């Protein structure tokens, strides 16, 4: 494995113009991803995890104000979306084109990015459909998306994302609309594909259990701030930020069926102004003290591991 990172985010901040004041979606994110590494970004609604993914995919709307950098050192140039970076979205019902056959949608990627002829692209589409586990791909390649089940549609969306052989596969909540059995199959499929292709994976989810299935490293986002990052095994066994701890505690309470262990995070996210100066998690944190409300904890660590919490500083 090359030690030159595939992806390097440095002081990355994203704001969206809005009234009465701009919305700060991401605030000073420091993160790197090595080639063939699998990083899972864990965050809830409003954490900025999708903004981060869209930034990396080059899909942020023009009005977004971006500061800091998002570079691809191992690539040595700006990535071509769809070729160097593949993207799998949460909802295959909306990400697939309803009027084109699945073969055409997979083939289009190869015609566009790999200069394939349409007849070669159709053959390659059959191979890709087989690879993502669609039975009888020769017979199904000309079917439109609505002839497939929800799980199969997500497999097809994955086939499109990997068709051009990207170095980085991005996945935004790829399993959240799916039932438990299909969810595990799709995660295992993604895992197998990035291993085979030697690609890196950046997967976004709100569910730590999903992260634990596939991640080498986990990064936890809260309200646009990276609060903790590190090896998956360490984050899951010894989380250091109170927010990561709460997520782990909830996941374990659900596994153990223990209702008493659920109440670990306060209900109200609080008013944004209250958290503007201090730690963004302070209004919901069970361990917050005076300093947390007035001083934002600095990131202590590097782009591979670290934590932002006054309690975690010596």
């Amino acid at each position, binding site marked *: 494995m090359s030690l030159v990172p595939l992806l390097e985010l440095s002081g990355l901040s994203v704001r969206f113009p809005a009234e009465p004041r701009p919305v700060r979606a991401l605030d000073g994110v420091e993160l790197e991803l090595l080639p063939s590494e699998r990083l899972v970004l864990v965050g809830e609604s409003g954490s900025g995890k999708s903004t981060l993914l869209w930034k990396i995919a080059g899909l942020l709307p023009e009005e977004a104000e971006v500061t800091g950098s998002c570079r691809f050192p191992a690539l040595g140039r700006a990535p071509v979306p769809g070729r160097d970076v593949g993207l799998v979205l949460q909802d295959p019902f909306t990400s697939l084109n309803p009027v084109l056959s699945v073969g055409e949608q997979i083939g289009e990627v190869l015609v566009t990015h790999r200069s394939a002829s349409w007849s070669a692209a159709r053959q390659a589409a059959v191979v890709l459909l087989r690879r993502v586990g669609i039975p009888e791909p020769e017979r199904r390649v000309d079917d439109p998306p609505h002839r497939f089940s929800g799980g199969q549609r997500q497999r097809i969306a994955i086939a499109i994302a990997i068709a051009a052989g990207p170095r980085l596969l991005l996945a935004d909540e790829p399993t959240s609309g799916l039932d438990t059995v299909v969810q595990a199959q799709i995660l295992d499929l993604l895992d197998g594909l990035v291993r085979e292709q030697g690609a890196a994976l950046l997967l976004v989810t709100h569910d730590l259990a999903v992260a634990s*299935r596939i991640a080498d490293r986990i990064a936890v986002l809260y309200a646009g701030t990276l609060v903790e990052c590190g090896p998956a095994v360490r984050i899951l066994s010894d*989380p250091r930020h109170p927010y990561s701890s709460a997520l782990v505690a909830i996941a374990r309470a659900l*596994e153990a069926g223990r*209702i008493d262990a*659920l*109440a670990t995070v306060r209900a109200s996210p609080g008013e944004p102004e209250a958290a503007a100066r201090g730690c963004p998690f302070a209004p919901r944190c069970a361990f917050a003290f005076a300093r947390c409300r007035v001083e934002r904890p600095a990131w202590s660590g590097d782009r591979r591991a670290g934590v932002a919490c006054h309690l975690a500083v010596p």
Partner: protein
Amino acid sequence: MTGASSLLEVADLTKRWPGAGAPAVDAVSFAIGAGERVALVGASGSGKTTLARLVLRLLEPDRGTIRFSGRDFLALRGEALRRTRAELQLVFQDPLAALDPRRRIGAQLADPLRAHGLVPRAERPAAVGALLARVGLDPALAGRFPHELSGGQRQRVAIARALASRPRLLVLDEPVAQLDVSVKAQILALLDRLHREEKLAWLWITHDLGSARIASERILVMDAGRIVEEGPTAEVLARPRAAATRALLAAELRLPPSDRVDQPLTAPSVSPRTM
């Protein structure tokens, strides 16, 4: 769980969609006692949502009987049906689909109070405030519209609306599936409190064994339209017999085992040097 103590008693319930080969719900029988929490689990397409719609009489069965509070639910008409419906309420997965986007929360919570003749007009604002407080919301939210609320707040409103007609049984269809993990934990805790305080019984439909563990004493496992396994939740999930139960357990995503499972959450005490 049959006999005099049953709140809901379903027998031989069957529904076949026109043109379909096998029935979507195939000769299903089960009972729920007063105050009992039952989970109905199964993969997509196992028939659990069709079964829920039959139980609520949103769909007429081809065959079978439903008794609710000792009455023949399928034979009820008019006023008797309306009164029974008040005692049997539904909470959807997506609260946005259950709430009217153009009307204020307060007006929507007042609907069931008026429709079931439960609260005189003059007392309705106070009753709406009390409902919001019961689900842990600020009564001032009565003046807001659904889109001004977060997903968790909306699900609390949907629960408040279901509680307004003083039900004895809730049918909850994946009530926490779309929620963030920390919000999911809060809604699970809220429903647990309501169950304890109000002796509320429920049928909790889910494919997520985590919420089934928390939210039920008894579990029904469905596969291909039939209940293939049934028993105390902890026992069934610890020693599954049916292939469908084993498949659900095998697919469940779990954190790696940890020796810290039983420790209460404590303040992190770390040094960055050990990271």
